């Protein structure tokens, strides 16, 4: 690769900032980190070649401050800005401003971001290109009456969606005419508060679908390829938890067809750089365009492991105006990769985020394991940003082996101080239906409840009893000199009832 970039600012935090920096370093590119006051101690700051403060903890006042970030890039002498995912990564105005400041935006052109960001506009664009979509309204729905007319024509269930964004906000499934008006108004107000835009549209809702997405990559010379699919059906409240590649339902013919369709969708908006086309796939393997994510995805490592490619390196490569270094038929897929998003949340208490300091952290290691993480032992999970601690990824030649590797890695992963969803991830990986590949996006909602989590085995209980007794006696020491250790019970155990 013929790289000209010398210095890149990463307008993000956490694991993705570190992920981008790692590739930059391998390519001999200097890295510039930005940080809010909540993140001064974070590893993405310490690992960068340069780091600059951009504001107070709330994202709105730091990681979403476009002028400040561009100003830092200029002052630091950076040539480019990589937005990561989230924050400003799908903000067309930011992409425009970066270009306007004479810097490279490591992502698609602003017009592609804008076209795909408006969900009804995106539907129209890809439909015109021949990409299958679900029956839906051609644009935002102006009135309840118009919405009800659509329902009468297509039948229930119907999904109300926000025109301005995704992520489950402003989304409502409606199953009868009686519910429609209430749900319609609720979705509008939710969309308004989440995106500052209350417009909603309607789509026919399919009950038993999988979420399968295609990674695409495009250069500025009209060449677009796909890098295979990722199955992301294991979701909780529209947030992905487990992702894998390939999908168990995929055949070579279907991959070729869906991949070609994904490339058509990307071309429909003049796409350049890395992006993802999301599809819903029904039980008969009919597929429908859902939306396009115009950025690097959280779950991109599974694609990297199955293709042997470095997506960040390729993003930097095409952002500088280089042609793609390979053609579609040169891309080979090997083995099976699976990713678990390890988040700081309490699976036994309605998935409440668990904030605080990580007291002990020993990640899984060993053959076939990759871990991308943005916090270290002793670090805090700040309340201001998302709750993801780590992405644990396993690769093996086949799916069964990859699942066993992931199970082993999850058992090995040690983290204390905050609660994590590791028990939930283990629940999924060990579930016979998941192992058999029989699941849809409803899997977690239908199968998971905290009382289905396994307990300790008998030998583990005994070991824990002994360890905790030792810990209780140990924490009483150091005892004052001259006394034996027997005073521990009066010193500590009486405090067991005390408030923490």
């Amino acid at each position, binding site marked *: 690769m013929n790289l000209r970039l010398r210095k890149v600012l990463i307008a993000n935090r956490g694991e993705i900032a570190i992920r981008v920096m790692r590739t930059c370093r391998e390519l001999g590119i200097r890295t510039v980190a930005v940080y809010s006051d909540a993140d001064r101690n974070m590893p993405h700051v310490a690992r960068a070649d340069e780091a600059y403060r951009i504001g107070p903890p709330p994202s709105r006042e730091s990681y979403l401050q476009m002028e400040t970030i561009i100003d830092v890039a200029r002052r630091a002498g950076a040539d480019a800005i990589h937005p990561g995912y989230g924050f400003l990564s799908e903000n067309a105005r930011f992409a425009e401003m970066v270009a306007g400041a004479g810097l490279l935006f490591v992502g698609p052109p602003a017009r592609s971001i804008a076209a795909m960001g408006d969900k009804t506009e995106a539907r129209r664009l890809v439909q015109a290109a021949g990409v299958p979509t679900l029956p839906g309204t051609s644009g935002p729905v102006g009135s309840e009456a118009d919405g009800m007319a659509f329902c009468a024509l297509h039948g229930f269930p119907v999904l109300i969606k926000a025109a301005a964004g995704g992520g489950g906000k402003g989304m409502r499934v409606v199953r009868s005419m009686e519910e429609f008006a209430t749900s319609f108004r609720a979705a509008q107000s939710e969309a308004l508060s989440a995106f500052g835009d209350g417009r909603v549209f309607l789509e026919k809702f399919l009950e038993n679908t999988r979420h399968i997405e295609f990674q695409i990559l495009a250069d500025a010379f009209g060449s677009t390829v796909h890098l295979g699919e990722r199955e992301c059906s294991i979701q909780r*409240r529209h947030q992905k938890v487990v992702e894998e590649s390939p999908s168990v339902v995929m055949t070579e013919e279907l991959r070729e067809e869906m991949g070609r369709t994904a490339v058509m969708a990307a071309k429909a908006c003049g796409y350049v750089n890395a992006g993802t086309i999301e599809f819903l796939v029904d039980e008969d393997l009919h597929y429908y365009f859902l939306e396009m994510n115009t950025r690097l995805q959280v779950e991109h490592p599974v694609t990297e492991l199955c293709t042997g490619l470095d997506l960040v390196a390729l993003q930097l490569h095409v952002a500088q105006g280089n042609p793609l270094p390979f053609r579609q038929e040169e891309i080979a897929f090997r083995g099976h990769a699976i990713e678990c998003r390890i988040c700081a949340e309490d699976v036994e208490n*309605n*998935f*409440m*985020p668990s*904030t605080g300091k990580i*007291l*002990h952290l020993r990640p899984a290691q060993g053959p076939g394991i990759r871990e991308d993480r943005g916090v270290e032992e002793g670090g805090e999970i700040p*309340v*201001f*940003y*998302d*709750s993801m601690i780590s992405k644990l990824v396993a690769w093996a030649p086949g799916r069964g082996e990859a699942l066993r590797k992931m199970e082993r890695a*999850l*058992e*090995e*992963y*040690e983290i*204390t*101080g905050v*609660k994590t969803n*590791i*028990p939930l991830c*283990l629940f999924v990986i060990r579930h016979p239906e998941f192992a058999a590949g029989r699941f849809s996006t409803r899997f977690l909602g239908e199968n998971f409840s905290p009382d289905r*989590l*396994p*307990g*300790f085995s008998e*030998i*583990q*209980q*005994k*070991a*824990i*009893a*002994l*360890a*905790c*007794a*030792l*810990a*209780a*006696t*140990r*924490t009483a*020491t150091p005892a004052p000199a001259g006394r*034996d*250790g*027997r005073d521990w*019970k009066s010193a500590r*155990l*009486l*405090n*067991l*009832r*005390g*408030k*923490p």
Partner: protein
Amino acid sequence: MSAVLVTVQGREHVVEVENGRCILQGNPDASAVEIAPGVFSVIINGISVRVLASRQGESFTAHCEGVVGEVLVETERTRLLKRYAGVGDVVARKTEIYAPMPALIVKVEVKAGDSVEKGQGLVILEAMKMENELKATHAGVVKKVLVEKGMKVEKGELLLLLE
């Protein structure tokens, strides 16, 4: 010599303590060492188990191969004291609902005087880009609501009183 009563997932284990040495009743040869702060290596009849134990308020949290659980460590004396004082798992009732984290109040689902069922939603909080519902830990009557929609609350701030 004294004994420690350790309750793991509802089952009680007796550990005798002698000069700082811990002996598991029924498995006197079992050995445990703390190999790093909070990390224990335990060997019972040749079976090796790695345990993490961290103290959290009045109990321990134990981790073992992806399973997490609360552990209660008592002596006969502390247990008797608890029974006598009428505390413990018999009557413990949460009547004050606190914010578990700094958050924005998205919705207050009850008002003073409402009867609530166990598990019924009380307040929806937004933190870390997610909405979270606080639920009633037991059935009761809402005595007082101290917050309203749109308010920002700090961790540990009193949100409502339940009776």
